[in-house]
Structure formats: C-alpha cells, structure tokens
C-alpha cells in the first residue's frame, strides 16, 4: 500500500513537473524572442512610433506581436500604477529592443500638480519599473494629455518628450482617420503618438507597412534623437514655445 501511494505521488509530481515545464516554455519562449534586428541607413528618413498609457493586458500584447512580426522597434511610455499587471509585457518590451519610458505614476495632469507631487509621480513610476527591470532608468517623460508648464519641466528631473504627429487614436471606430492622420502627415524626423488601445491595435499593421513602403525607417526615440540636429531635438523634446495644453 505504501509503495503504491509513493508511486502515485511520484506520478502526480511528474505530472506537475511536466505542466510546469510546458508553462515555463510557453512564457519564456516569448520572453526569449531574439531582439528585433535592424540596420539603419542614416541617409534614409526615420520616424519613431511611440505608445502611451500602457501596459494594457489586452492591447499591449497585440501591439507587441505586430511590432515583432514587422520587426519594428518602438518606444512605450508606461503608466507606473499599471506596470504591476504587465510585468511580463514590460520584460518582453525590453527583451526585444523597444524603449521603455515614463508616462507618470497615475496619469495625472502634471500642470495641475505641485512641484513635490510632480517629483512623486516620476519617482513612483521609476520605482515600479525598477521592480520589473532592475537598474532601468527612465530618460524621458511624456506628460499625460501633453500638458506641461515650465514648472513641470523643472520638477520632473528628466527630459520631457513630446510628439510631432498626433494619431488621435482615442476615437472609437475611426481606424481610417487614424491611419490617414499618421501616414498623410508624416515626414522625416517625426514622432508619432499612439496609445495602447483597441483602435491602434487594429490599424497599426497598416500604418507600419505603409510607412515602410514609403521608405521610412521606424526607430526608437533614442535612435531618432541620435540623428537629430540640436535644433530639431529641442523642438521635439523641449518645445521652443511654452503652451500649457489641456
């Protein structure tokens, strides 16, 4: 009797080990995807796709899949309080070569906050990302709603990163508009703002394919910034005209 019990327990243990191994394989086969490969030609036009408001358990995986299938690196501006639910997604972003940046901790309008609160928003988001990607330091902050003031820039402690092309992808059922908002107005050195939302997930592949057909190289913000002139960089990263948008 004892021997049979031990044998059955070992059988169950084997079953558990097999299931665990399959699960680990399932998880890590995605996490261990080789990084996106890219050879940049400095003479060809470049644009950067950026995604705000993630990670979203529903849409970020779809976006990541499209980006991987089309071998397109991008930049994700993540919200700190949403990171816990998307640990694997964030690791995957980093693993395949996307750029991970800050979109504050709780997605508040920074223009309405005190200096201390602004610092808190950045610091808390930094803490969250370091729990998932130890040692990762944000270099850019994209203020929620694109709203900032001089105080925001001073208190944030990191560079503000804006955009030059707004996809307006927050409008439901407007995939065609989103597509044309991006591809009709694009030019070399542009930064496109998109969001981890259903509309983007639907239209992203078409946007990428069209931009590539037009000869654009799709890059991360860092890659783009490395190629910009100081003047272009300032226009993008620290806009020359102050306007507290809402």
């Amino acid at each position: 009797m004892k021997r049979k019990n031990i044998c059955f327990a070992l059988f169950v243990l084997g079953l558990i080990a097999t299931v665990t191994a399959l699960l680990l394989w399932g998880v890590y086969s995605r996490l261990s995807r080789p990084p996106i490969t890219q050879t940049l030609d400095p003479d060809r036009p470049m644009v950067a796709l950026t995604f705000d408001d993630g990670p979203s358990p529903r849409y970020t995986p779809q976006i990541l899949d499209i980006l991987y299938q089309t071998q397109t690196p991008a930049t994700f501006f993540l919200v700190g309080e949403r990171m816990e639910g998307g640990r694997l997604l964030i690791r995957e972003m980093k693993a395949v070569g996307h750029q991970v940046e800050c979109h504050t901790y709780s997605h508040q309008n920074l223009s309405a906050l005190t200096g201390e609160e602004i610092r808190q928003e950045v610091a808390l988001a930094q803490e969250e990302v370091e729990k998932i990607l130890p040692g990762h330091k944000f270099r850019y902050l994209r203020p929620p709603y694109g709203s900032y003031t001089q105080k925001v820039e001073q208190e944030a402690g990191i560079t503000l990163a804006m955009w030059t092309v707004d996809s307006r992808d927050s409008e439901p059922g407007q995939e065609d508009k989103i597509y044309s908002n991006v591809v009709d107005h694009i030019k070399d050195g542009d930064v496109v703002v998109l969001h981890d939302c259903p509309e983007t997930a639907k239209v992203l592949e078409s946007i990428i394919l069209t931009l590539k057909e037009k000869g654009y190289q799709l890059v991360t913000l860092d890659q783009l910034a490395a190629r910009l002139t100081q003047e272009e960089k300032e226009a993008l990263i620290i806009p020359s005209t102050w306007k507290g948008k809402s």
Partner: protein
Amino acid sequence: MKGKFAATMIFAGVWLGLSIWFAIGWAREASCYLPAAYVWWAIIGLALLPGFMMSGMFFSNLLHWKCRTYPHTGQDTTVILCAHNEEGTVARTIQGILDQDYLGKIRVLVVDNASTDRTRSEIFRVKDLAGENRQVEYLYCAQKGKAHALNTGLAQVETAYFITVDADTYLEKNAVQRIMDHINARQSACVAGNLFVDRPTRTLCAKMQIYDYLMSIAAIKRFQGSYRSTLVAQGAFSAYSTQAVRQAGGWQDRMGEDIVLTYQLLEKGLPSTYEPRAVGYTTVPQTWNGLYNQRKRWAIGMLEGLSQVKPWQQGSFFACHFTCLNVGVIYLDLAFLLGFIPGLVLACMGCFCLVGALTIFTVAVGALLSAAVYLYQKKLGIPFHNSLPGFIAFLLVFQGLQSTAALHGYMIHLFRRKGEWK
C-alpha cells in the same frame, strides 16, 4: 433559513462577479503567454470557484454566528461502538461514554469486528465499570467491514435515536447530552458532532491535522448544517434517528459507508444537521502514509456517495446545492495540483500570470474564513491544542498531500478497485 441562504448566495455571487471582472484582464494577459483554455481552467479552479465557495461559507457562518442551545432531554439512547483491533483505545473510549453527564440511560453496544488482538479483553475489562443508567454489551461480528459491524449494532438498537462513536474517539463529558438535545429538538435524521484531534502531540503530521479539523472541516459542516444538509454525518461521532436509518437500509459495505448513508437520508428529504457544541476527540493518522490513505478513502467515499445519489436526486434544494459544490471539489483538487503549484513555481521565477493578485484575494478570504471559524470554536470554550509547527505544515504541506491522495482515490473509484477496511 431560505432568507439567509439567499443573502449568502447574493454575497457569494457578488464576490464571484467581482472576481470574474478582475479575472478578465488577468486571463487576457496570461493568455498571451499560455493557452487560453488552460488559463481559464486554472483561474476558475484557483480563484473563481474557491472564492465563491469560501465567501459564501464565510458570510453564511457569520449569519449563523450565534450557537443554538436546545432543551435538555433525558430519553434513553444507544451508542454503537465498532472496534477492529483497537486494543489501545477502546477501553478509554468506552470509559469516556460511561462518564458522560447525560440525564438518560446510555446503552453501549460494542461491536467487535473480528479483532485478532486484545480488543475483546479490553472491552470486558471496562464493561463491568458501568454505573447506574449505563450499560455495556459486547457483540461480535465475524464478517469484516465497518458497515457489517454497524448493522450488527443497529439490529440491537431499541431507542428512538442512537449514536455512533469510533473506537478511537473520546467524547467530551457533555457530548452525548448536547447531540441528543439537538437531534431530539430538531427532529433530524442525523446530526454530526464536532470533532477535534485527540492528543496531537506525537508527530508533525498529527499536529498539522489540528487545523484541518478545527477550521476546514468545522467550517464546511457548519455551512451545510445551517441548511439542514450536512453531507457527512461521520461515523466517528454522530447521532441518528433509528427509524430513518432503518428505512434507508442501514449502512452499505462501501469505503465511505457513513457518506453514502448520509446521502441516502438526504435523498429522502430528511434533515442532516451539525452540532458544534457536541465535541469528540478523534485519533488521527500519525504518519504521512496513514493520512494519505485516510484522505484517499474519504475521496472514494465522496464519489461513492455521489454515484449512489446524484446531486439532482437529492431531496432538497440545499442538499442538491451542496452536493454540486462537492463535485466542484474534484475540480479544485486538480486545479490545485496542475494549476496552483505550477503557477507558484512560475511566480517564484517572477512570472505572476497564473498565481497573481486574484489568488491573493482568494487566499485572503480563505484566511478570513479560517480566522472566523477559529474564533467561533474558541468561543465554544472547548479546550484544544495549538501548534505553530503544525499550523505551518498545514499551510505548506496539507493541501498538496490531500489533493494528491484525493486524486488517487478518484482514480481508484474510477477503475473500481477495492480498498481496505476502516
């Protein structure tokens, strides 16, 4: 009763609804990495179903927090005590019954089930110590099997109610009074007593079981008993209506003969209740192998009960509900082994896609339920042992062993293999 049950279902339903709402996002992310069907199977087994069960149990037990008392009865009763090679414990058990503070007469029918040790002489040693209103009779049952022994005793019962006590179960001084008060006042077909672990000081395995009896088993029995549908009036210490048991045909020669009998009584629409103040201390398996065998038997017994009386054949809506939940236990055992443990390994490696925030919520409601039951048991004023190593072992080891043994039991039942006596 119906109002409280409805309130309980609303509470558990709200909990379930919130859990599903949380689980959708969780499942979506996990499905990016694991097969969606497996993810939902695991989430149902790790969070939704246990959350529904435990939140309902917690809320219902809170609604039934007040412990009912009943008018004292002094009517004569019979105790059937079956013993198979129990020389070490039978005398103490009989002595415990003889020492009961019971107002009426107690006739103890000790059924020696083909013992080959000194059980017989131990019975005779204490037989003559019976005082006024106490009587011990020795019966012999040559056919091995607990059901045969119980039926031998049942044939001799002349009282309206009788009690079964295992030869290794020691009763509190007022246990018989309380369980008789209960069955007499509520006219139940059977009443399960409240079992604690007897002298759990020997091994870690025994100490661990303190908390299973103290919290898990007691919580389930109280929940079911509140709706007159306790699914197991355990042979170790329960009271029965003689007429009801005879109508049901007595005990069947099955691995879980007590479970099958309770199911049969419930099928007839007869009430099965639980008396928390009637306490017995039972000897639990001291070894891991012993515990494994016991839980395997219990799992087989549960399936025997379910095969004998299908959930939809139960005599009351409540009994039907609880037997359906019992079917869910099979799912939970599998989900624990093939969902929770692998999920825990993944979590240890930093991947919280299976064991995540919602699991913690479920653990939290489980902890809340256990704490409430612990406080309730404490409120009864019954002395019981505590053991920190036992509690830690209960948290870390118990469920794994129980689920493995139960799965083994389910397989045995599935392939119709014969088990051993107890």
